[in-house]
């Protein structure tokens, strides 16, 4: 009987992608909490998962939900521009400029860009993770990249 691999394998194989996505989505500090919540939710649902599932896309779908929940909570707490908050809490990095610009993108474009390049998902998988059509995912990615190139 085929079954999903031991969870540790899944964790090690995709921790990087999930972290890169969350770091860009909610900022380095909040990424830790979202990362823990993502894998805990994944662990709970894991035994019922279809062994043929695309594990990376599945994990990123969960991570996206956790990131959006986090952004909503934060927005309720502080009614400022999302990007500003994220940029403000981000530690200065060598490529700090790009992360600041990513943080300024509207959430959906930001998610699309990060899912494509941070997590290496295909358009169809991005659409599933965000919960939109493939066409809309393509558009968000395109718009997001265009904006990034303009601001940098």
């Amino acid at each position: 009987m085929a079954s999903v691999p031991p969870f540790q394998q899944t964790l090690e194989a995709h921790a990087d992608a999930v972290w890169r996505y969350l770091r860009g989505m909610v900022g380095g500090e909040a990424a830790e909490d979202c990362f823990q919540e993502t894998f805990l939710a994944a662990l709970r649902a894991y035994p019922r998962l279809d062994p043929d599932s695309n594990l990376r896309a599945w994990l990123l779908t969960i991570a996206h939900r956790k990131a959006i929940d986090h952004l909503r909570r934060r927005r309720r707490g502080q009614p400022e521009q999302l990007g500003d908050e994220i940029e403000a809490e981000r530690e200065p990095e060598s490529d700090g400029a790009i992360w600041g610009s990513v943080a300024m993108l509207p959430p959906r474009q930001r998610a699309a860009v990060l899912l494509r390049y941070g997590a290496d998902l295909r358009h169809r998988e991005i659409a599933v993770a965000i919960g939109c059509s493939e066409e809309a995912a393509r558009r968000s990615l395109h718009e997001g990249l265009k904006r990034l190139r303009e601001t940098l």
Partner: protein
Amino acid sequence: MSPTTDPIETALRSPASEAKSAARRFADRAAQRGADLFYAQEASPLGELLLVAGRRGLIVLRYTPTDVDATLVELAERRSPRIVESPAALDPWRRELSEYFDGARRRFEAPIDWQDLAGFRRRVLAATAAIPYGELESYKTVATKAGSPKAARAAGNALGSNPLAIVIPCHRVRHASGGLGGYTGGLERKRRLLAIESDAG
């Protein structure tokens, strides 16, 4: 897609050094709550050991390198795929083992999970678990204690599939003639375990 020389794409793809430690923190936390099985690979005087435990106790103690991945995959299918690596969660067993190797511990007290062990095999392993530290019994004696005096060979096979090396001391079983018999971890390990026990005794 444009080539990876694009500075934006390159930056977005940059490795996340924090991911590894975040994953370790997750695994340790999950071992306390959420995961069903946890494992560790532990250095010992007899080489590296693989330990796997669940909520009820220790399930596997094997010499490595046997195929660690294969063992975990097999447990994922038979028990649960909620398996994480967490040395901290194995602390009670790791501590007792280290004391044992130092000659400072004569019996293991941290719990054992007997769930997968049934029938004659279980009776053989239970009889073996009762052999005192530093003593030797024959396959025939163990078979007799397991309820089948004529099944010395079958008892040997049951011991060969002992999932809990050292803790269930199959190294204390030998031939009635005095021959050392076999050992899954190799006879050299069997001799060294017996030497530890005779030095400390």
